[in-house]
């Protein structure tokens, strides 16, 4: 087999492998992902047992009992509020008014947060607003 043909075969094999791997990657990313929802979207329709990424602001009045945190997440515009029961690490910046991301699953009337999935966004360092509680 002359070198040019060998090279063409090699290139074809390599490209096919790359396309297949990329395809596998892309396919699994869609099935392995959790949809991001705001509280109002979550209240509108959430399947039981499916995990969602809830993003929103912490509503004032949260209760900590030992390792469990009961808090409500409301829309940025402030309309709907979703109750979440969460167990696990609570990040340092967590407090009312801060933006959070937490993976939740519907259970009965409320939502249960996945362990250690709570992320609090760094409070607005890059905006002009004065710090609020």
């Amino acid at each position: 087999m002359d070198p040019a043909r060998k090279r063409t075969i090699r290139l074809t094999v390599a490209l096919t492998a790359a396309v297949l791997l990329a395809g596998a990657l892309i396919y699994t990313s869609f099935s392995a992902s959790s949809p991001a929802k705001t509280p109002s979207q979550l209240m509108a329709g959430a399947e039981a047992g499916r995990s969602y990424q809830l993003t929103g602001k912490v509503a004032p009045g949260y209760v900590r009992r030992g390792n469990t945190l009961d808090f409500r997440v409301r829309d940025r515009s402030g309309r709907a509020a979703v109750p979440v029961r969460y167990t696990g690490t609570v990040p340092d910046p967590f407090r009312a008014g801060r933006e959070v991301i937490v993976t939740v699953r519907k259970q009965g009337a409320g939502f249960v947060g996945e362990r250690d999935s709570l992320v609090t966004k760094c409070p607005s360092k890059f905006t002009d607003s004065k710090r609020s509680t």
Partner: protein
Amino acid sequence: MPVLGRACLILALVACAYGIGASLYGARTGRREWADSGRRAVYALAGLLTVSFGVLELAFLRSDFSFATVATHSSTTTPGFYKGAAVWSSQEGSLLLWAWLLAMWSSLVLFSTRRRMRDITPYATAMLLGFGAFFCGLLVFAASPFHVLASAPAEGNGLNPLLRHPSMMIHPPMLYSGYTLFTVPFAFAVGALAARRVDAEWIRSTRRFALAAWFFLGIGILLGARWSYSELGWGGYWAWDPVENASLMPWLTGTAFLHSVMIQEKRGMLKVWNVSLVLATGVLAILGTFLVRSGILDSIHAFGASTLGKPFVAFIALLAAGSIALVVSRRDLLRTENRLDSLLSREAMFLLNNLVLVGLCFVVFWGTFFPLISEAVTGQKASVGPPWFDRYTVPLALMLVLLSGIGPVIAWRRATAANTRRNFLFPSACAALCAVALLPVHVAQKPLALCMFAFAAFVAGSIGQELVRGVRARRAMASESVPLAAVQLVRRNRRRWGGYTIHVGMAVLFVGVAASSTFQHTRDASLVPRQTVRVDGYDVRYVKATGRVADDPDGTGAFMTLGAVLDVSKGGRHVATLRPARNYYPGDPSQGTVGQYIMGDATSEVGLKAGATRDFWVAVQPDAGWLMKVVAKGNDLPPSAGGLALAAIAQRYAERPPPADFRLIASPLVTWIWLGGMIVAAGGLVALWPAPDLARRRVTASLRARVAQELGRA
């Protein structure tokens, strides 16, 4: 003073515009004085931005709250060191730091190349000034650091307590140095393509700048990981957070470039690939800068929506489109001189290494931007988590480590059975030995980790073998003593030995990552004093609670610190006494008599016992419910009694604490990650250090380039 700062920024923008015009005119007409003038515009930019930065820095250090930026990001209670570093905790200040570092590094690079590559440097100057113009434009029109408040407040907001850690303060300058240095090879690549001079001389210079950029960016990333581990209360060092990923992507393509450029130097292959990598790295660096401050992706670093999104996206699109256009229009220049002879050769291994690195970059890119991609495709924003990232990056990382062991010992062009046997026997034996030795220690249950350890042993074996052979050869030639031979060996080929050191460092780092993520033991426990809990064979006894007021043991400006003293022992033998704590920072007066002192932010001071084989990590969270109740009672008191009430709270906590939540993590080999990083840094320095015969090599390279060009083969 703010006027001086702002004036300098406007002048800087003018200097950029002038410099771009002068350099391009000089390049097109071949008139050297115009090109030199363009270069001096860069020096002027550096000078102006230094003044600007100095004005802002001084304002922070003096707590001049008439500056809006100072008022929102610093306070009189912020400790001195952190006041100075608070400059870059703000959007405007960090942009100014970025622009300043760009100007300084560009000046250094253009000064050192002022007599060389005269065809290319004017275009590179224009490109660098283009970057400067973009950032100065943002500083002048969109995010001015010199915005003045109508009436200066008496006290500022203070620096976010999470940032009051030394690592966090050097982390941005290191990262930005990395990002800005990556614009240099980008600019020189653009210049080389524009001037139609893609030859050996360009390669040699670009490689050096890319290595320096890679070095700083790598240190920046590692510092971020270290900060996350030792300061944040979750005990991890990498979360596949979008902003972390944004800094990793240019580092991955930069690493790929540093390898593939060797193939171009030695065999004139992969030219299109190389320029594409350099250009992609530059674009990714700007993309990384953009991601941090745009708020388009949900991240712990996300800083809310900002107005800078659109200009950045436009700029990145322009850079990407321009790069593609340039490469396509110059593809006749980039024809390969040689072809791949065999898949079992060093060239093939380098190519494979590149594919793995670019593959890794693609995985990280896809996962990071997935929310936007899924929104575009399905209308629904969805995100992928760390398990998805791990699934694809772990096998790729394994391949990378293995390749880093194979590459140095496989032959160029074509490996024969004989030299393969000779070169691979010892390293393979090391790997097999390592695997066998680890089998009894329950490692076999985790095949991926076992593979990583075995591959790391392979790398150590192959590089050790090279070292021994090199020293032996030198001793035979020059009859030097062993240590001297080793030193001379490295001195004569810093690039190679720097690279080998980096490979060893990376192997050590990956061993640390594999061990600490696979064999970690975590335990959450709610304890009162004198209770004991067991984690991975360690007995941890909660000795007593501590409460301190206005003590500020860590020098971060905390008003109250509530903590615990823990006694860690193993098999009856005392291992460590850990003192995890929680710092409470001032809020604002509306939070009440007591609340104003401590209901601001809170941070965790981690109790860490680092060891060569195992890290013991613990964080404590005093019962927040109890604290809020006590603070509410204290708020009933008059403001003057605030301090006393605080002292009473701290004392009460120390004497009769409510149950506190502890997170205890025992991780093996975490120290190897930091150790590996330091070895990589040392290797980087060795590789970067100017070789003794640099001048000679430079001249021969440029002569070679000239001859090649005349022969029509540049």
